[in-house]
């Protein structure tokens, strides 16, 4: 078995997965920002009865009827959740759980009924889709031949629907970007600015429902949920601004779709196994990207945070060492307590401290820096006593922390509360 890209087998499934990932990711940005991620989850569960009812009523898989049914069900979910929340005074999470589980159960029950009539709608494919069935039988073998109208004509309905959906989604977000942004960050402001945040909310939910329907047939509802949340959450960890977030999210969606799709064939093939479910593996890829962002995001990642903490710890250790040496010089007593040898090494390395025998002494630059630290410490002590009303024997510990901040109180008295001289700023 040779894992390679075959236009006949892979083009349309990949395209469908990619388009679904992009459209869901795009809308997901706003769900994640508005803390409505689980609304996406609820809607994608709850469109099932809408689909099935439309299907039973029209006895066909006509896209229009399905779309209509699902959109109605999606909106009904939003409205019902709101009703249960408001009229029943039920906690939001539970309200969502009530509505989507009941609607989904209805869908499952109806789908069994539809299945009895020997029609091809089954509960399994709702969950994980039928990417593998999007085969292009008389596909050209060369990539160059793809650049013709025939490609578009041959594209299966799922792909064209998704393409249209993506187009609509991009237009919606581009047109209402400003409104969506205000509604996401400050719904009250949105209302005072003269457009109704509620309308935006319902419009967004309508799009989520539509995207769910457009995607579910090809990729299954589980991938829809993953793509609504994971890429947007990934982007949220990488940037603080909305436009970059939308772009990063699109990149993450694309990456997940490609990695997941090819991973589902190539990785098992490396172990001599058959390919695994593509929708599932795209979900895993999206999860993997998110995990990567959680760990390695430069601004919000675990590693970056740990590095920041380590840097802070080192600088505090250095400050403490310098300050201790400064006080030693001041009083002439040895008062070096337990100091980290690593801090001393670093101080020597930076030329702030010199070692003679087993004694450490400040160099001139070291003394200047140490003077600043002690000065901040004593200024803070004076400030805490004078302004914050603490008693002089209580301020040392607090000042010990505040001295490491970049800021210090404005010039204070000449002596600190313990009667020691506050060093003047170093002569520059």
């Amino acid at each position, binding site marked *: 078995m040779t894992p390679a890209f075959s236009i006949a087998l892979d083009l349309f499934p990949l395209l469908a997965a990619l388009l679904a990932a992009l459209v869901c990711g795009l809308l997901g940005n706003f769900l994640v920002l508005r803390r409505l991620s689980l609304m996406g989850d609820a809607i994608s569960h709850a469109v099932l009865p809408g689909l099935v009812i439309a299907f039973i009523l029209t006895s066909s898989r006509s896209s229009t009827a399905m779309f209509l049914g699902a959109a109605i069900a999606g909106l009904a979910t939003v409205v019902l959740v709101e009703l249960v929340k408001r009229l029943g005074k039920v906690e939001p999470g539970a309200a969502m759980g009530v509505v989507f589980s*009941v609607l989904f159960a209805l869908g*499952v029950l109806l789908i069994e009924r539809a299945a009895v009539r020997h029609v091809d709608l089954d509960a399994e494919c709702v969950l994980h889709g039928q990417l593998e069935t999007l085969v292009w039988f008389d596909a050209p073998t060369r990539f160059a031949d793809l650049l013709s109208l025939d490609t578009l004509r041959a594209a299966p309905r799922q792909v064209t629907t998704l393409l249209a959906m993506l187009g609509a989604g991009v237009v919606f977000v581009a047109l209402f970007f400003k409104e969506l942004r205000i509604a996401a960050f400050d719904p009250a402001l949105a209302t005072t600015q003269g457009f109704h945040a509620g309308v935006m909310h319902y419009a967004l939910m309508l799009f989520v429902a539509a995207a769910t329907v457009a995607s579910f047939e090809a990729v299954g509802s589980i991938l829809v949920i993953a793509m*609504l949340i994971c890429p947007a959450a990934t982007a949220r960890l990488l940037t603080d601004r909305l436009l970059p977030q939308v772009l990063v999210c699109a990149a993450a969606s694309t990456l997940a779709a490609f990695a997941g799709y090819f991973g589902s064939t190539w990785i098992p093939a490396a172990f001599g196994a058959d390919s695994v479910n593509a929708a599932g593996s795209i*979900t895993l890829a999206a999860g993997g990207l998110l995990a990567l962002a959680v760990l390695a995001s430069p601004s919000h990642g675990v590693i970056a945070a740990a590095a920041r903490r380590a840097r802070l710890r080192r600088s505090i250790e250095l400050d403490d060492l310098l300050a201790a040496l400064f006080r030693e010089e001041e009083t002439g007593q040895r008062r070096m307590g337990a100091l980290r040898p690593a801090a001393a090494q670093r101080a020597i390395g930076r030329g702030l401290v010199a070692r003679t025998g087993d004694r450490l002494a400040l160099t001139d630059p070291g003394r200047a820096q140490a003077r600043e630290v002690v000065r901040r410490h004593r200024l803070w002590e004076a400030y805490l006593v004078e302004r914050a009303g603490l008693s002089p024997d209580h301020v040392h510990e607090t000042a010990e922390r505040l001295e490491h901040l970049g800021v210090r109180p404005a010039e204070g008295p000449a002596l600190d509360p313990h009667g020691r001289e506050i060093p003047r700023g170093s002569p520059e």
Partner: protein
Amino acid sequence: MLASLAAPDESLPTLAEVVRVLTFRAGYNTSTVLLGVTLLGVAGGVVGVFALLRKRALMADALSHATLPGVALAFLAALTLGFSGRSLPILLLGAAVTGVLGVVCVQLLLRVSRLREDAAIGIVLSVFFGAGIVLLSIVQNSGSANAAGLNHFIYGQTAAMRVSDAALMGGIALASILLAFLLLKEFGLVCFNAAFADVDGWPVSTLDLVMMALVVLVVVAGLQAVGLILVIALLILPPVAARFWTQRLWTLVVLAGVLGGLSGYLGAAISALMPRKPAGAVIVLTSGAVFALSMLFAPSRGVLASALRRFALRIRFAREHLLEAAHENAGTLGRAALDALARRRGWPGWFRSMILTSARVRGLVAAANGEVRLTDAGAAAGARIARNHRLWEEYLIRYADVAPSHVDWSVDQVEHVLSEHLVAELEDALRARAKGAAR
């Protein structure tokens, strides 16, 4: 309803059959399953109360979706070790392990990243489920003959349950019910005031863990019968429904247990009678119906009850407006005055006649030829309302820094909630102040 649910090639069960199933006489297997699902429903209701009160309802959703990879992994592991892959205890153990792992992941995401709870739950739910789907497809590729049964964990299937499966399910459910009742007081404390419980020396985090463990037990027990997507409904629906009926924890727990048990019992019975019906969906729809009925008809918190209460209040306010207007018009309101009042207050005709009726049956007014005349009781009530009105106006002008032009507007609402006692106090204060000013 049954008729519309029945598939075309499925005949409706006869009454005798229905009675036989419902009274546990439809064979050992069916009865065990029925009992097991009922116990499961009770357990879901009881444990769900704490999940609901602790606002962890959707955490259970992440948990239940996260069980799928565990089921598939346990199946694969059992096969490689030479056991039968269909051994339920092994599968459920796997489910519990990854389920807990999912919850741990949610907590971890909340701790180390800036993602909110909704996103964290959604991520864990979908990624774990995706992993489960991948693993399931591996299981299917492995061509193992009994792999198909694993799909039943997604949507649930009681028809294929064996007696031992049902007994295991019932046993787990019973154990979690007992544990929940044993720790009822402690759980209640943690749910209502975790900070106080902590200060008071209770091991809050341990109790939280035990609570989560109970949720795990219920989810895992429910996997086979209800399926992992819908099992969360067992934990959410009965407690939310029971919450409409009571304010007390003990009653809430018992009621949620009863409603859950009832849903389980009816759902399992329906799917025993019509085996094609997916039991999980039927159980969830049954408790959904219980929820809807509770939400609509519960006496104190129900939608209907509170709508009626609101309407009664509106009538009372309107009646007081009527009495006040009549009082200020020397005890009578002619047809024209009544029309003017109704127009000013925006009362539609039907509402106006309801007000008149309510005032008449209370003996406050006598109405004849479209005219309203206050009775003695009505005159007293009208005088009291008018006096309240004046007092409030005075109070708001003097003490509350309300612009005089706004007073009348706000007074209409507050005069109805003023207690007699407060009025007396206010009157004294005003009188004293008036004397002081005169001196």
